[in-house]
């Protein structure tokens, strides 16, 4: 989002910015173009009294800057998934698609979340680390076509400096690889200038135990008490 010279410096837009890219300088608002992730929250939520905020759409922004727009604004349609949002259907439709089977774990590493943003360079650091322990990246995820080498988790060089509010590195491994994935993620925690929210997706056993829990506990990972649960109402149901 760019601010024109019509700005009168009222400051109303400043707190709405998702990542603190708007500041008041010399009596007018300025949006830091390096930080701004083109999420459009400011233009959607604030009525600028002098109409000084300009938000370009995916098709209007040049590549690779347009990546910011469709990764950061869930309403913007990704040319890859042809859907809004940053991820895939993953476990949400697993009762119908069978994407995650017993004995498997799907990991979602949501880079930049919550509310910090990430560069593709930091995402590459994480993707390369998990690829070394056998992560196979989900081809339907909007980051997949941006990988120049999916086997090693390497992104196209021209996008490494782009920033997005978040992106999700999605991959599935056999459950026995859980400790390796956790070790790989721990090894890069100090090498990135952002955060990531981590999730693990598995089938629920018929007795309602969760097969990945012992693996995570042995690896010393704290599991939050709240989760997202597919309650098995899809039809036909994958048993």
């Amino acid at each position, binding site marked *: 989002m760019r601010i024109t010279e019509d700005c009168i410096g009222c400051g109303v837009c400043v707190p709405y910015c998702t990542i603190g890219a708007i500041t008041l300088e010399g009596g007018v608002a300025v949006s830091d173009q390096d930080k701004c992730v083109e999420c459009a929250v400011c233009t*959607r939520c604030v009525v600028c009294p002098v109409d000084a905020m300009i938000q370009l759409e995916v098709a209007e922004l040049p590549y690779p800057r347009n990546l910011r727009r469709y990764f950061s604004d869930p309403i913007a349609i990704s040319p890859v998934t042809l859907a809004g949002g940053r991820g895939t259907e993953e476990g949400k439709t697993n009762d119908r698609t069978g994407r995650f089977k017993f004995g498997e774990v799907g990991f979602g590493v949501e880079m930049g979340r919550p509310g910090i943003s990430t560069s593709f360079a930091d995402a590459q650091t994480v993707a390369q680390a998990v690829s070394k322990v056998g992560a196979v990246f989900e081809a339907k995820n909007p980051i997949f076509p941006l990988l120049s080498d999916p086997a090693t988790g390497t992104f196209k060089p021209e996008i490494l400096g782009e920033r997005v509010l978040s992106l999700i590195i999605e991959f599935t491994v056999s459950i026995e690889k859980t400790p390796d994935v956790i070790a790989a993620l721990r090894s890069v925690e100090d090498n990135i200038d952002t955060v990531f929210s981590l999730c693990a997706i598995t089938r629920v056993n018929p007795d309602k135990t969760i097969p990945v829990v012992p693996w995570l506990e042995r690896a010393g990972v704290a599991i939050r008490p709240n989760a997202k649960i597919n309650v098995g109402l899809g039809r036909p149901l994958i048993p």
Partner: protein
Amino acid sequence: MTHSLHRAGTCESLKNDFPVLAMVARQFDIVNPDAKKRTLEKLQAIFDVFDQHAPTNLGSLYVPGTRAHGMTDAALRAGLKPNGFVGAVFSDRASLRDALRELKERDFGISIIVSGLIDQVFGICDQVGLQPHTIDLALGVWGNQKLLPKAELMEITTMCGHALTSASLVEDVIDRVRRGSLTPEQGALELAKPCVCGIFNQRRAAELLTDLAK
């Protein structure tokens, strides 16, 4: 993939907060015009089921607005698309249980995903006779933790799973509530504005704001 997961807060603060999604499977549900028509009818019917069981918020990614934005339920329903989803938040267990019971009886076949405290959601599944199929566990925030805002602000910001509600906006709204220019309920609606898919729980936000503004 995870926008209704990763809500921050204690068990006490999360015990009345249940985001629910009805999600289409693109490989089956939108493959031809007939499938799209059937899917849209199912989503509309699911929307009505949610609506009848007193959700706190209601929305869909492809409709530009949610109940918290003041969109009427009729306008939200009219804007549903077959390639989308319906999102709702329930703020009490009984409403969620009754909504799930009706969804089970009517057997739409669309995947339903409930977020919340695991013990509570599994307990409600037991009451309704549902077998949880797949679970997405939240394993916390990793990396450079120094970049994060205060934990109490994240209890509110993480209710927009796409991270569109900023910590600076929460601070600004707390300040406005303290000064008396907004009530906690009005402040909560302001904080729900950035969320586009209807899973921000403005009732929980109002309760948290009341405490934070003290």
